């Protein structure tokens, strides 16, 4: 993987092989992107265009889906609409062309805010706890270290539904059901195992000599940790944080079983966006697009660390 690849060696594939390989991979990439592109296209369609046959690739773009995902509308008679003043804003305009008026904001915004609060809250907690534990496991002799690490990993392997049954009962008893705090704690406990394993890998790579030198200069172990190790581990901590964020952002099983209104996040909400007479596909697509964009950005940022993240830090390239 290192210098030997740069040099021209006998095992370099020929140009023809390369082109052929590239062609196949690009073909796969294009096919695999179709559903995602279709989500974005659908989000800009009018409801009629979205369900037309054959499916339309070219259409007149409309923001109706985005309006519908952010607002609730009520159907009114022509006479009533005439008594109202001029339409306020683009969404009102679209609604009135369908004999409706905007009645207020939809539930998408509070669900989205819940997603943000719960994802960021649990990420901060998991990364903080994970960094401390990872340092502990990386640098100190801890009795039963391997068993503890395995225990931490195994908690993530539990089937979410199996965990959800007692959590449901426990949260009901202590009054955490359908609260953001409850979801933050739950996601933290799932993410902390990933954080410990990933960060231990990153901290293992920081030479011990740095801290030892700092301690000879009079730092305590704790000061050395804060002033020497943490700055060195910034990249690792950032990558870990993004992984935790993505997990909490995407999580559905716990959210759908343990929340109903107050603390519900976006993933259980998006599938139940419905319009008049069935699913409002442009609105669903718009909600989905807005929800997915941050993840796409993060994936591009993370691409160098992806492999580490998905294998709990085992495979490092």
């Amino acid at each position, binding site marked *: 993987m290192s210098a030997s690849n740069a040099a021209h060696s006998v095992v370099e594939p020929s140009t023809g092989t390369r082109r052929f*390989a590239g062609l196949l991979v690009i073909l796969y*990439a294009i096919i695999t992107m179709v559903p995602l592109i279709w989500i974005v296209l659908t989000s800009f369609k009018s409801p009629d265009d979205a369900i037309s046959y054959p*499916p339309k690739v070219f259409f007149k773009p409309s923001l109706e889906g985005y309006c519908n995902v952010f607002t609730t509308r009520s159907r009114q008679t022509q006479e009533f609409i005439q008594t109202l003043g001029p339409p306020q804003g683009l969404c009102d305009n679209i609604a009135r062309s369908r004999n409706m008026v905007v009645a207020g904001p939809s539930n998408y915004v509070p669900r989205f805010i819940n997603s943000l609060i719960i994802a960021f809250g649990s990420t901060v907690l998991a990364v903080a*706890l994970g960094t401390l534990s990872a340092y502990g496991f990386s640098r100190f002799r801890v009795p039963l270290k391997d068993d503890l690490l395995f225990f931490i990993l195994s908690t993530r392997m539990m089937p979410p*539904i199996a965990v959800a049954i007692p959590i449901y009962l426990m949260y009901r008893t202590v009054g955490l059901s359908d609260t953001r705090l409850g979801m933050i704690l739950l996601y933290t406990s799932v993410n902390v195992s990933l954080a410990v394993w990933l960060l231990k890998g990153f901290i293992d790579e920081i030479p011990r000599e740095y801290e030892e030198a700092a301690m000879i200069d009079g730092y*305590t172990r704790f000061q050395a940790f804060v002033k020497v190790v943490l700055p060195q581990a910034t990249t690792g901590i950032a990558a870990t944080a993004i992984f935790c964020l993505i997990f909490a952002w995407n999580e*559905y099983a716990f959210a759908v079983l343990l929340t109903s209104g107050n603390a519900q996040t976006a993933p259980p909400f998006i599938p139940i966006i419905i319009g008049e007479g069935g699913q409002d596909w442009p609105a*669903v697509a718009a909600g989905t697009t807005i929800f997915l964009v941050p993840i796409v950005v993060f994936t591009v940022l993370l691409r160098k660390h992806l492999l580490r993240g998905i294998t709990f830090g085992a495979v490092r390239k």
Partner: protein
Amino acid sequence: MNDLSTSSQITYRAVPIRPGVIRRIRGLSDQALAWLFITPTIVLLLAINIFPLVWTIYLSFTNYRANRPNAPTLWLGTDWYQSILTDPDIWAAMQVTAHFVVWTVLIETVLGFGLAFLIDKKFRGHGLWTTIILLPMMLSPAVVGNFWTFLYQPQIGLFNYVVAFFTGRGASSFQMLGDVTLSPWAIVIVDAWMWTPYVMLICLAGLRSIPDYIYEAAEVDRASNWRQFWSITLPMALPFIMLAVLFRGIENFKMFDMVNLLTGGGPGSTTEVASITLKRAAFESWRTGYSSAFAIILFVTVFGLANIYVKALNRVKSR
């Protein structure tokens, strides 16, 4: 911590003391710090994971129902376990799960390894295309799974249109999600679409871990490309492939979100994988004791697989 009394004296004479001594007596000892750092994580996991697990084990021996918390709780012993292991519905769910796991893992491994093999040829722009291929696996299975129900719509869905376009069948002549024979494949297709990149990424790491000099030696020995693939590439990438297979196996064994949104277990119970059965028993029929026992059975299975997974991880790590 035991020599706090001497610490004040020592700090005044700073320089001539050996660093090890200073480290031990200033601030907390390493051992105390280690526990201070690790304990919060362990406490959190004990509270949110282990305590509920123990509670589940207890509930699995009782007739407790979460929707009747005030009814008297009876101790049933291992009754639930016996009835689950002899229940034909459970075995049907296990069969559905096995179908799902085996086919998704097979398709993902073949496609994923193939892609990794091609990307490893390092054609121009392979970095960009690799990132594009990786996108589906980072997205929310629930949100994306939900959108696939739109692609699978008989008349208006893109998937049906494309299949109709290439096969000449009518676009509304088949229902991917409503048909007893097609729906198990509908969930396999979406899972393969999402998770092939995962296997690809791990296989790519495996292929890149093979040092060039081995191929050079094979080239000197005039081994054919075919021979090189079977004698070098595949065996050396195998631990990585196994890792990917094991992880996908575990994840798909407990698959819930995507299937719940695509089919919800239907039509009938043709796509009712184990997690869906568990959800129906626990949160729809409220048979808490019964579902706890089933949860424990699933957990023991996953735990066993996880054990193998960690052993495989360590083997890959030592490479």
